[in-house]
């Protein structure tokens, strides 16, 4: 299974990958450092799920989510963001994200994501 992790922060990506390794050790992880790179990798690799940050340079997570959903309306995107405003969550859910979690994500969140949010 391919998973795309998108965050401009290396430690942000690593904390997600660390939880992925605990909960789903067999996944193949791809990394992107901004929304533009994420869309390109998504088109090429068609990952089963995307973990997407919102506040990023070049292209933010809102725009990346929109473009990913245009490529595949069934894309399974989990937003992981420092922005914990309810309106931010409403916006990403309205754009097609499966769920949104506050940073930093932990192993319990990851278990919940694979149990409840993603249909893989």
């Amino acid at each position, binding site marked *: 299974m391919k998973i795309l992790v998108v965050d*401009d*922060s290396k*430690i942000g990506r690593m904390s997600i990958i660390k939880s992925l390794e605990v909960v789903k050790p067999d996944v193949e992880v791809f990394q992107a450092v901004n929304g533009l790179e994420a869309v390109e990798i998504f088109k090429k690799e068609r990952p089963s799920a995307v973990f997407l940050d919102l506040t990023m340079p070049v292209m933010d997570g809102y725009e990346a989510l929109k473009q990913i959903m245009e490529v595949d309306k069934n894309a399974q995107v989990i937003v992981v*963001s*420092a*922005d*914990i405003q309810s*309106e931010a969550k409403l916006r990403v859910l309205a754009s097609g994200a499966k769920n949104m979690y506050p*940073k*930093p994500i932990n192993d319990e969140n990851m278990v919940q994501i694979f149990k409840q949010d993603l249909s893989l």
Partner: protein
Amino acid sequence: MNLEFNEDQIDTLREFINISMGAATASLANLLDAFGTMHIPKIEICNSNELAQKIKSTIDLKSMYYATKQLFTGKFGGECMFIISEDSAKNLGRHLYNVTIPSRDDINDAVIELTNILTSTIVSRLTQELNTQVQFFVPSSQFIDANSIVHCEDVSDYSKIIIISTILDFKDQKINGNVYILTKDEAIESLRVLIDKRIEEIYG
């Protein structure tokens, strides 16, 4: 004393500030019943005599400002400074008190309320990420011109300063301000040690 930060340490600090600013923005969004746009934090290590110029380069020099400063001590000690222009502060007063022309007292109260929530949430959340604790001092607020925000005597005892800056941005309400976390010399070394511990935990 090693006051330099490597790429991973800067990345980690920026991410922790991002998380802290997210918590603060959410608290203020509740207070203002509004949506705040988040921005990527900027981290700079500079000589103390460069501080005034660095701050002046991020603000409009023609405006008057409310500048609130709050000291905190502990393993990670420093000063959190929030700068909001007179116009933005008026908009904050209008919005919070639902009046067309807020009084100077209304504006002062609104700025202090906003600053208290902002600085305490940012620093508390940051220290939580760093697995440490700090003690806060009572904040002080001034209504001053851009050139008077940083006085030489504020920073003359220190050689290096880390400036962590980000923007509070409620676009629809035309309320925005600049947040700076200043930490100096021994605190920079402590901060580096705390960050290294967290990197070790996350990277395993």
